[in-house]
């Protein structure tokens, strides 16, 4: 009797473990499509709307609302205070604490001076600006435009066609404001990135694109005299460094 009982116990244990799996997800992993059970959900799911959650309050069931005309979304600076944007710009390089977007109509927000594209950054670029620009460029642009801006990012290997190279004459001569506008609103087949890149970061990317263009079309004269010997040391006859092949 005892023997049968123990046998049954071992059998049941094995059955449970093989059905339920182990907690470790490398060996006999437990994967389930069923949501975790919540036994007393009253405090766990309160009557509040969290970000990007559904809500019964609105007819379309969305907790996240799209922009209503005449209102200022949280994180955007109000249209009338123009001091704020330049303040945001001045704190560039330090860690961002607030999302800086803006609905204003000045050069820093539209890239336009009057009706023409302006040139130059709306704040002084430092090395930190370029570093920030590099980081943002690599996150947002490099998948399509490539690490050096040649228009040969990884997405082009999978069938994305017509990505512009920044090294073409037209874009090298383009005003900064127009590039800024392409980032915000897109151009032709490229969609805009204005909703995910903050105002100072857009300008930092423009600055970094300028640095890329410069680097891809550089001559030995762009290299500081102190560094030059290091570059020409192995091949003293080379007087110019050819632009890198794209």
């Amino acid at each position, binding site marked *: 009797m005892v023997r049968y*009982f*123990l046998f049954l*116990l071992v059998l049941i*244990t094995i059955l*449970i473990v093989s059905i*339920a*799996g182990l*907690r470790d*997800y490398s060996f006999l*992993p*437990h*994967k*389930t*499509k*069923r*949501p*975790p*059970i919540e036994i007393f959900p009253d*405090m*766990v*799911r*309160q009557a*509040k709307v*969290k*970000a*990007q*959650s559904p809500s019964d309050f609105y007819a*379309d069931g*969305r907790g*996240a609302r799209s922009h209503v005309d005449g209102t200022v979304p949280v994180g955007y600076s109000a249209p009338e205070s123009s001091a704020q944007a330049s303040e945001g710009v001045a704190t560039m390089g330090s*860690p*961002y*604490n*607030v*999302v800086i977007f803006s609905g204003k109509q000045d050069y820093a927000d539209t890239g336009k001076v009057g009706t023409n594209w302006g040139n130059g950054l709306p704040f002084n670029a430092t090395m930190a600006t370029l570093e920030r620009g590099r980081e943002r460029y*690599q*996150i*947002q642009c490099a*998948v*399509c435009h490539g690490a050096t801006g040649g228009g040969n990012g*990884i*997405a082009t290997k*999978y*069938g*994305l*066609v017509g990505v512009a190279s920044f090294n073409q004459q037209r874009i090298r001569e383009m005003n900064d404001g127009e590039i800024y506008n392409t980032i915000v609103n897109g151009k032709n*087949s*490229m*969609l805009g990135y204005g*909703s*995910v890149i903050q105002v100072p970061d857009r300008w930092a990317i423009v600055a970094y694109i300028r640095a890329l263009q410069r680097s891809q079309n550089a001559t030995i004269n762009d290299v500081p005299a102190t560094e030059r010997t290091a570059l020409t040391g192995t091949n003293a006859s080379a007087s110019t460094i050819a632009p890198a092949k794209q």
Partner: protein
Amino acid sequence: MSNFFPKWANWLPLQLLVCGLVIGAPITLGIWYYFTPKYTRVGYQPDQPVPFSHSLHVKQLGMDCRYCHSFVEVAGHSNLPATQTCINCHGQGRILPNSPRLAAVRDSWETGQPIPWVQIHRLPDYAYFNHAVHVNRGVSCYSCHGAVNEMSVVYEAESLSMKWCLDCHRAPENFLRPPSEIFNMNWHPASSSEQRELGTKFKEEWKINPPVSCGGCHH
């Protein structure tokens, strides 16, 4: 006085005790093992409306988390990408524009209704959590979400229980990373002693002091 109980009854209490132990112990063990968030939550992998693969987009294409989860550094909530983010690449005339697996993405783009992604990681509403404070202070996505770059379908890799939060808050040096490696899912310290050494250095330099009192997370 006659023998009221038969002789075998002398053993009955002991037999009952042994029986109780033999049956009770596995039940206790089972509950201890299976009824905690380490089991009930870890491995939760719901079906998503689009078979989106992090392993393809992150590992194979080398995309940064922030291309899609764009506000994770500046907001408490780590956003899921808007449909436009997918359309950047999957729109008409771009990559796989007619794939049936992307039908829900195209519908969403046309109607303006969001893609109904199923939320996987979900804290109770009485616990306060903020992504930006963690990500900007040397805690990587990897420490809390596991090797997302290897997942073709995302699942919950950690229990998100209160003990789990506190295990790190009491000893953050076991997890802190150089700021440049926060979004790098492939960065791993050579050994746990190297991790502790590095972590202790960062903890002191940055004055890391995560809350362990109740009010830090329940307010």
